[in-house]
């Protein structure tokens, strides 16, 4: 509903909005955020939150850049970045599962560490990426669709499939809904928790690879500040911060809606700070709606009406 309304309003304001090229602009702009938003959905559904995703993007991007500068093959650089991501996920898992630290605090801590290491790698300087085949992964289009959008679609498809159709997905929902009930039902809460953190690290690293290949260089501050934007998109899409509820469909809508708003304000020529203001307003409105409708109608997010038919059963 919200997307349709904004779409109509934008067409009236700017004739450019409803052109195919502009939709690709929106898709390209949200692609990298989308990859991480996809994996942050099961994270939130499991009752945890990972605030180290953006720092993992930066660190894994710097890792790939540093390996490429050493003239190592592109697959090795990508593998290195993904291993760094999995390592981040593993460490977060250790802190949350073994030391029973709240995931919010744990991942704020690891985010600082990862960001610091990203700066140390090349003494705070960015790395120009010499390998053309690496840069080609994220630049340009295939079949008329920007390449990063492909990766995002794959991430959404894979995670959406797992959440909706598999036993692992059912267990992630159960752990987030009631860890005690899940435990009593014989589900290993530590395994599920560790699993979502590993996935979070892996997809964040993937986003870091796409980010650096798109940019043609790796920045130690790559991805900085995106973690909040990502969580905002997931929450706007109706996933509960308290766990147990949410869907990938909702997150796709959340990501697209935030992208459309940013794009619309661009087309209207409004400067960036106004985008932040509108993003903030939308987040607050979405969560407030969820609270009100949750109490009276059993609602789930601003998209309840839109998603009623497709809701995860």
């Amino acid at each position, binding site marked *: 509903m919200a997307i349709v309304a904004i779409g109509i309003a934008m067409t009236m304001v700017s004739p450019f909005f409803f052109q195919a090229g502009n939709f690709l602009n929106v898709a390209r702009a949200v692609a990298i955020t989308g990859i991480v938003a996809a994996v942050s959905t099961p994270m939130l559904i499991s009752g945890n939150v990972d605030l180290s995703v953006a720092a993992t993007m930066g660190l894994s991007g710097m890792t790939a850049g540093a390996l490429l500068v050493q003239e190592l093959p592109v697959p090795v650089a990508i593998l290195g970045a993904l291993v760094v991501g999995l390592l981040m996920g593993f460490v977060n898992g250790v802190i949350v599962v073994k030391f029973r630290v709240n995931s919010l605090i744990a991942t704020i801590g690891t985010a600082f560490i990862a960001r610091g290491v990203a700066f140390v790698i090349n003494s705070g300087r960015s790395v120009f990426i010499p390998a053309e085949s690496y840069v080609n992964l994220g630049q340009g289009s295939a079949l008329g669709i920007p390449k990063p959008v492909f990766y995002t679609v794959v991430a959404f498809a894979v995670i959406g499939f797992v959440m909706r159709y*598999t036993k692992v997905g059912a267990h992630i929902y159960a752990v987030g809904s009631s860890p005690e009930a899940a435990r009593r039902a014989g589900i290993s809460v530590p395994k599920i928790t560790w699993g979502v953190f590993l996935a979070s690290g892996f997809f964040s690293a993937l986003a870091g690879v796409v980010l650096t290949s798109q940019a043609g260089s790796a920045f130690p501050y790559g991805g900085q500040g995106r973690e909040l934007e990502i969580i905002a998109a997931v929450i706007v899409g109706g996933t509960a911060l308290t766990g147990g509820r949410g869907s990938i469909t909702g997150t796709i809508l959340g990501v697209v809606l935030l992208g459309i708003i940013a794009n619309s304000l661009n087309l209207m020529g409004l400067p960036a700070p106004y985008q932040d203001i509108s993003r903030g307003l939308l987040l607050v409105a979405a969560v407030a709606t969820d609270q009100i409708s949750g109490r009276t109608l059993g609602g789930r997010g601003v998209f309840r009406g839109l998603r009623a038919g497709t809701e995860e059963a």
Partner: protein
Amino acid sequence: MSVDRGQVVIEGIGLSKSYGPITALDNVDIEIRAGEITALVGDNGAGKSTLIKILAGAVTPDAGEIRINGETVVLRTPADARDLGIETIFQDLALAPDRDVVTNLFLGREVLRKGLGGKIGMLDRRAMEAQALTQIDALGVNIPRSTGVSIGEMSGGQQQSVAVARGAFWAKTGMFMDEPTAALGVRESSRVLQLARQIAGSGVAVVLISHILPHVMELADRVVVLRHGQKVAELTEDISMDRLVTLIVGVDANDAAT
């Protein structure tokens, strides 16, 4: 079910458990029979829950032996007991409130698709829905038949009915109910107790822990009374309120072991 009504299917011999200096259970023998409702009564701290937890694999006894269907078993986790067909229903619901009836009925024991789909962990949602609805209809429980309604949106009685239906679905040998009606109203309680009777009727050994003595007298085929961690009586007839109260509080401990 090949076991006959009245046959001992779950047996505890000399079960003891201490927590530090506190003896929760002291050398208790118990026999639980198929098709019967065995009630476990006693004051707070008498050892009822400890005994149930030992037989359900949730607590490891310090001493004693457990036999299920005549075979000595070691129950390390509740999963071990579940694999032997023993289900436990708690007063605080062990359900995922954001999930629907079907998902909860199969929680941790999901049915996977056949072939390749199953190998990658794909759920057979259709099979689970069909089996869940059959179970709900067989028990005649009053819960929404439509899928997709989360448990949290149901009344307390309906939620407990889902928990009981789940227990009944998986219990092949025994079903333990620890204060199943503690959080329920009068009508909802009687519905849940009726379910317990129905489940026992199907040949399952039902164990009921309850503080509510009228329920116990109405339902139980056998009443086991615990006091200070010891078994003080096992009654199958002449179960009166006065007698139970006397045994539970131990006013006249000498006429106990009948």
